[in-house]
């Protein structure tokens, strides 16, 4: 250690700190730790799994297609809507967000590194915001890209017809709708799981409860349906998925929520959860269980 280089007296307290710079610092560190980390391999698997299936579909159908296509673009569009509704929203994005957001604070506590953040002059509210935004960037990039690529590849075997569907038909609008719903799902589930990571030692338990609730949604009475994230997301999906028998008789129909209610409603709900998490973080103490 060089004693001589420490000879300068302690500098005056830094006054012109920028909140944006501080939040940027949090995001930078979080993204560095989270992106391409080995710990999160299963999240990449969740995100990229459907892309593998649609690519396979493209390859197989391209071969079969030489002997004549056995289904239409409209059918592939409904199949993708099914994948999006039953895989992405109910499993992939849900569990991916659980893995990303509930670890933002919980993993720091388990790894005994949260005190480094708490020892900076950063308001805890901004720390929550920085971590949430970093998680959101990661979730939206991963799942948004996966959804977009899966959509683009599922009809690839139709060749010019698929390009025409995308550029001159409803394809791009549908793609935009799916990416928007993906982003909103990440916003909503992200806020839920960030909060559960702050409040619960084992976020799996609240995640399981929320998951069961979200998946029971089609069978719930119309009033209860509205107390869920999936209900609003479903209203925003560009293609409706027909429920096959015998489940269709158990499904309770509810009036779909208009776009101008669903989007602000979901954002407002997420904001409330985040504000509650921020208020809680303000009084959180460092207790690593020692």
């Amino acid at each position, binding site marked *: *250690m060089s004693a001589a280089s420490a*000879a300068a007296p302690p500098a005056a307290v830094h006054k012109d700190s920028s909140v944006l*710079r*501080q939040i940027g*610092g949090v995001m930078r560190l979080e993204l560095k730790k989270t992106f391409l980390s080995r710990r999160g391999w299963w999240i990449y698997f969740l995100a990229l799994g459907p892309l593998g299936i649609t690519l396979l579909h493209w390859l197989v159908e391209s071969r079969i297609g030489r002997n004549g296509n056995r289904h239409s673009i409209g059918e592939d569009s409904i199949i993708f809507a099914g994948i999006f509704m039953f895989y992405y929203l109910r499993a992939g994005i849900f569990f991916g967000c659980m893995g990303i957001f509930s670890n933002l604070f919980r993993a720091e506590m388990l790894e005994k*590194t949260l005190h480094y953040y708490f020892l900076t*002059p*950063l308001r805890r509210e901004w720390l929550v915001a920085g971590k949430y935004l970093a998680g959101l960037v990661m979730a939206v990039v991963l799942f948004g890209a996966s959804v977009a690529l899966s959509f683009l590849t599922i009809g690839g075997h139709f060749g010019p017809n698929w390009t025409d569907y995308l550029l001159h038909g409803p394809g791009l609008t549908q793609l935009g709708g799916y990416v928007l719903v993906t982003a909103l799902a990440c916003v909503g589930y992200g806020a839920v799981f960030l909060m559960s990571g702050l409040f619960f030692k084992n976020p799996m338990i609240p995640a399981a409860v929320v998951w069961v609730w979200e998946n029971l949604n089609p069978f719930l009475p119309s009033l209860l349906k509205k107390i869920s994230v999936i209900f609003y997301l479903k209203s925003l999906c560009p293609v409706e998925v027909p429920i096959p028998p015998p489940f269709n008789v158990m499904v309770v129909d509810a009036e779909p929520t208009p776009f101008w209610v669903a989007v602000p409603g979901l954002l407002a709900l997420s904001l409330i959860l985040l504000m509650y998490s921020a208020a809680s973080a303000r009084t959180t103490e460092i207790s690593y269980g020692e």
Partner: protein
Amino acid sequence: MSDHIVFDDVSRFYGEVLGINNVSLSIPPGITSLVGPNGSGKTTLMNLLCGLIRPTQGSISVLGITPDHPEKLCRLVGYCAQFDAFPKAITGYQFLYSFLLMFGFAPAECDRRTRESLSVVGLLDAAARPVAAYSKGMRQRVKLAQAIAHDPKVIILDEPLNGLDPLARAEAIALFRQWGDKGCHVIVSSHILHEVDRISDQVILLSQGYVVAEGQIHSVRSEVKEQPMQILVRCDRPALLASRLFAQDHVVEAKIATDGKGLLLRTRDADSFYLLLNRVILDSGLEVESVAPADDDVNSVYQYLIGAEGAAQ
């Protein structure tokens, strides 16, 4: 702005477990050592000081700022905690730089401070290596660099000498001394009592959540009346001095050194002893080479007040 760290009747309980109880302290600038066995409340005191935990009762003020305002407090305080844990997949440079960004410094300023702090602890050459690949001593040093990178006025160091080799330890102690001399508060907890003794301006002895003693070590020692003071006198005729001492009721023990050139005695009244010594010198021409307290150190005070556990470490 006050230049003291003040604990006013502070208690902290973890459920039903006592952390610290009814602690009132006023810590001036300089090096203050927290000494006590495991579980005595040293880390609790440090965590309270930098706002990582809150008191169950009482109030804390660090240079006039309460830990309820971490936005202000954390600019003043640097804490090198005991946890040997770091964010994943990060180099030494990134570790310091990332947290300096959270202080709101501009990127160029973060870069300058990062390099300067790493240079202070001798890690500039290893800056680009992952912290996970550092040795224990290097990890200890990078934590120290992170604690001082924003130039805090209060530096809190929980067992900072752990894992350091003797050279690095000496250099670290020299740094603590420099900071203390500049008017910073340097609060150190350590089990290495002879090193605590060398560096401390004052000590706080803790046991089972209570402050047993505080102040300069000499004052603390003189307050321990029930333990006779040990004094070593190097002189040419220790037997003569011993014979005169045995007539005094405040002297409880006297041992002549094996080389025949010294006398180790234990007395309940050091002032009376020094008067007597002056008389013996005048009466018999005793030649005295040195007179020094033999138990006026942290190790002895620790043994007297807390017990033998850990005192010889």
